[in-house]
Each structure stands twice: as structure tokens, then as C-alpha cells.
């Protein structure tokens, strides 16, 4: 049997979603962005909403998300994605609107836009990839950088006395009435990725039901910024990031599941 016979469509049990383009990802090998992109696009594909979805790309490593996501997308100024999404959703209420943002974009420069979009309960999905560092600009401190963590702008480790403690954004926004769903996930193992996909799916279903804002944080790695191999980075993430950023649902169907820390 030839290879081409084996990969006939009827024999395939899995194929790449058509909503991911064939453009090579610009992410470092081992980075979680590729998986997070793929899961988002799979959900949109499976829900059959691609024709009615508008995505907003951020500034940061995923600035080029529109090169990989095969749907209509607009690229925002740094931190402003929730403002764009607000306007698009208000003017096209029947559309699915999502932002895809990193920690610098969402939790530093765009804090105001994030909090106010959440507070207004905009009927949008925010996908927040938190790897505790500025990857694109070369490994500087992020608002979510862990205490003591070394980055190029905290070379002796983050001193929380001087630099503040890392922000738990998902807990923060979950206290706002406009937020309908807030969850923290990871995509570093198959098991985690499957759970993350379910969370993203729930988020887009909330949009369909006009429930308000859904916020999906994905705690991720940055092996190049953390200066580790991909494997070590994932272990380090489990040991250090997850205790401070615990995985799981924080708010479901408008109700807080656990008290914010």
C-alpha cells in the first residue's frame, strides 16, 4: 500500500483545520501559541461559525496571528484589542468576536481596555495567553512575571517590593458582573489541551447565547525567554507557574466558583 492510499480522506481520523493557513508559524519551537491558535481555530471550525467570526490580533509574539488564522482579522494597537472588539461586537451583534492577547498586551498596557470591556460585559471572547514574560521584545519583565524570576529587565529577579507582585488577571476580572465565564487553562499536554479546547468552545457558545464576556486564560511557556529547553520550560511551568496561577474555572455561568486569592 502506498502512502497516498493510506492518507485518503476516508482513512483519515484527524486533519489540520482549514482555518489554520499553511504559513509557517513564527513562534519558537515548543511555544504554546501554535497549540492555542490551533485549538481556537478548531473550535470555530467545528461550531461552523468561521463566516461569522472576526478576530482581533494583539501586539506581541502573536501580532501575526492573522497570518495563521484563516478568518477575517484586524490587528490592534498594543493593548487595545478589547476596545476594537467592543466596537465590532456592538455594530455586528450577530457576529462572533474574539481577541487573542498576551500578558503584556492585556495585563499591562491594555489593563484599562480589558477591565472596561469586561465591566461592560461585552459579548466577546478574550483569549489571554500568559507566559509571564515579554517574548517578542526579547524577554523583559511582564506584569505576570513570577516573584524572583529573572528577565532582562529584572536581571536579579523580580523584586515584588519594588516591581509589584504578578497580577492574577483572571481572578481580578472575574469579580466584575459583566464577566460570564472566566477560566484558566494550559495547552502543554494533550490532556490539558483537550480541556482548554472545551473552555474555548464554551466561551464561543456563550457568545452565541449573548451571555456577555468570556475570558479564557492559557498559562503557557516561553522557552526562549525563560532560557530553557521546551521540555524543561513545561516542567518549570508546572512547578512554578501553576501554583501561583492555578488552573481551572474561576467563574462559570456568571457565578464565581472559588474566592479570588
Amino acid at each position, binding site marked *: 500500500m502506498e502512502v497516498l492510499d493510506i492518507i485518503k480522506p476516508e482513512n483519515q481520523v484527524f486533519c489540520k483545520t482549514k482555518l489554520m493557513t499553511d504559513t509557517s508559524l513564527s513562534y519558537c519551537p515548543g511555544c504554546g501559541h501554535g497549540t492555542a491558535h490551533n485549538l481556537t481555530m478548531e473550535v470555530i471550525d467545528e461550531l461552523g461559525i468561521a463566516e461569522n467570526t472576526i478576530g482581533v490580533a494583539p501586539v506581541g509574539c502573536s501580532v501575526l496571528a492573522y497570518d495563521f488564522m484563516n478568518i477575517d482579522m484586524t490587528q490592534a494597537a498594543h493593548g487595545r484589542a478589547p476596545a476594537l472588539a467592543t466596537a465590532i461586537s456592538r*455594530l455586528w451583534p450577530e457576529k462572533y468576536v474574539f481577541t487573542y492577547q498576551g500578558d503584556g498586551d492585556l495585563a499591562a498596557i491594555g489593563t484599562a481596555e480589558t477591565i472596561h470591556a469586561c465591566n461592560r460585559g461585552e459579548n466577546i471572547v478574550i483569549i489571554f495567553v500568559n507566559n509571564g514574560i515579554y517574548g517578542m521584545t526579547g524577554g523583559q519583565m511582564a506584569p505576570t512575571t513570577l516573584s524572583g524570576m529573572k528577565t532582562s529587565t529584572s536581571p536579579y529577579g523580580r523584586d515584588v517590593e519594588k516591581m509589584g507582585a504578578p497580577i492574577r488577571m483572571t481572578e481580578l476580572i472575574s469579580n466584575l458582573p459583566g464577566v460570564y465565564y472566566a477560566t484558566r487553562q494550559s495547552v502543554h499536554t494533550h490532556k490539558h489541551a483537550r480541556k482548554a479546547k472545551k473552555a474555548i468552545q464554551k466561551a464561543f457558545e456563550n457568545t452565541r447565547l449573548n451571555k456577555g464576556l468570556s475570558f479564557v486564560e492559557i498559562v503557557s511557556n516561553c522557552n526562549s525567554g525563560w532560557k530553557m529547553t521546551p521540555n524543561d520550560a513545561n516542567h518549570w511551568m508546572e512547578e512554578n507557574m501553576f501554583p501561583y496561577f492555578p488552573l481551572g474555572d474561576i467563574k462559570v455561568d456568571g457565578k464565581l466558583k472559588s474566592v479570588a486569592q
Partner: protein
Amino acid sequence: MADLKLMKGNEALAEAAIRAGVDAYFGYPITPQSEVIEYLMSQQPEKRTGMVVLQAESEVAAINMVYGAASTGKKVMTSSSSPGISLKLEGISYLAGAELPAVIVNVVRGGPGLGTIQPSQADYFQSVKGGGHGDYKLYVLAPASVQEMSDFVADAFDIAFKYRAPVLILSDGLIGQMMEKVVLKDEKPRLSNEEIIKQYGSWAVTGKKDRERNIITSLDLQAEKMEARVHRLLKKYGQMEKEDLRYEEVHCEDAEYLFVAYGSSARIALKAVELAREKGIKAGLLRPITLFPFPKKQLFKLADQVKGMLSVELNAGQMVEDVRLAVEHKVPVEHFGRTGGIIHTPEEVLEALEQKIMNHGSIRHHKTRESGILQN
């Protein structure tokens, strides 16, 4: 039947927006233009025409909401006053870079800094020289009456969509706050989503249906692509200069002295022309209606006829630089203007013409001097 009303400039602009079929307004209150959003809210435009009006958390958020809405082919505008426009400049640069149509209104107050809430024209440089980062220009309309505050809304959107570029209406606290009679245009229906998809589907992000995906971005990491983008913008600006320059000449036919003034200063300069003519001084007025494109050729031509020009501005001398560039030192060009929110009188303006131009200005190829600030 003409719909004649007595209105504030800011209110006339807001009413014109509803009537022009604008889809959305995003703003943040700031004196002296808060009446725009107040009036819009009072009119419940969501009920009248389906127009979305939202008070944003900041000027920064508002301009980025404009960017989001404009990405989808909707007619969208924002307004603010000087400090707020400074905050919007990042977003304005992005709008220009991403080639998005939108209308921004600046009801200028005095600066720098928090400055004053009184009228000013000190944002001329910011408006016509870029303001935000990068190689871009704004098409700038300068209303001089409440009527123009109303009329220029639809005009601005025509230009914004003709070029897929942001357009600025540069007003000031005087035009925004004063009441005047205004004839309002008839209400135009908003475009339906289907019409928007049909008209702007080649570029707008409305959902990828029966076509390849659309992307709105101002980013080109490849230098050659970025240069091509800049050239595309430059081509638009060249076309604006050819096709959409607007200016008004008053008593220029036999003028020996010329006032150059826009917006509220043009109204004062017009009175100064009358006072001059009563005294037997043949004065005229060139009023740029668009500040970019700027009536360079008209000024260059008038420089062959007049003995000197006075640029009258409510600022420390900004447009005067463009007037000088336009006339290429053929005649003396001086500036006169008050700042800090003080509005010059027609008598002051005429006196400035007499002292700064008429007493010095008969020599051709005259060396330009630094214009004094706040003199006389």
C-alpha cells in the same frame, strides 16, 4: 423645506452625524466639546437611526473603538479636544497606516498641557504635520461657522471613504460653543450590513464568506512592503491635493494686502478686511477650508499681486510657516495671533497688518523676520 435651527456648533455637528447616516460614535467627555456626546445621548440615536453611541473609558479606548468599527466598513466617528486628541494620536496613526476611513473632530482649546478650556488654534501643527508617528497625513477640514460644523460631517465621510483614510475636522472652542442659525440636511439612511459587505467587502472584515479572508493591519515587517504601503499613502495625499483642495477668497481680486486665516480667525479677519476697506486699505482674505491639502498654488499666485500677507491664527505662529513656504519669499509674510484662549479683535488684526506688513512690506524679496508672539 429647509430645516432651519438655532444651535451650538457642537450640537449641530452631532445632529449632522445622525442625519449623515453615521453608524457609530465613540467618545470621552472633555471641555469644550462634551456637548457632542451629550447631544447624541439625548437624541437616543439607537432608536432614531440605529446609530451606536458609547462613552468609552478613555480617549485611547474611543479611538481604538473607532479603529475596530472602521475595520468592518462602518461609518464611525469620535470627537475630543486638544489634550484628548493627543491621546488619540497613536490610534490615528494606526488608522492612517491600516488605511481605514474614519472622522475625528478636534474642538481645539489652548495648550500646551492641560492649558485652558478657552478657544485656540494651537493644534495646527499637530493636525497637518502628522501629529502621530510615521509618514502620514490627515485630510483636515476647518469649519468657520455652525453651518460648516454641520455640513462638514457628511463631506468628511465622503473623503474618508473615497480615500480609505482618516479625516480630521479641526474646529475650536469658539465655533463649538457659539450658537448660530444652521440649515440641517435631510436624514440619510444608514447602510445595511448587506450594503456594507457589497460595497466594502473587498477589504472590510465582516466575516469570511464567499471570499478569501480580509486582514486589517498597519504592520509590514518587510521593508519593501512597508515602503510600498507608504507610497500608497503618498499617492492618496497627492490625489487629495489635486482633487479635493478647498479654500475661499474674499476681496482678493484687487487686494494689495492679504489676510490668511482659517476657522474662527477667518471670521475675525473678514471683519478686519471690512475695517481696512473702510479706511481705504485694499485688503483681502484667503481662507483655507482644507488645511491639508493647503492652497499653496493660490498663495503663490496671490504673492505676485499683493504687497504682503498676514497669517492670523489663535496661536503663537504655526500656519504662517506653510504660508511662507507657499509664497517662496516673494512677499513678506508675518503672523499675528493671541494665545492662551484670548480671541483677537478685528481692530487688533488690522493694526497688526498696518504695523507688521504695511510699514515694512513694500520691498519685494524682503527678508522674513521671526514673527513676534503676542505683539500688539
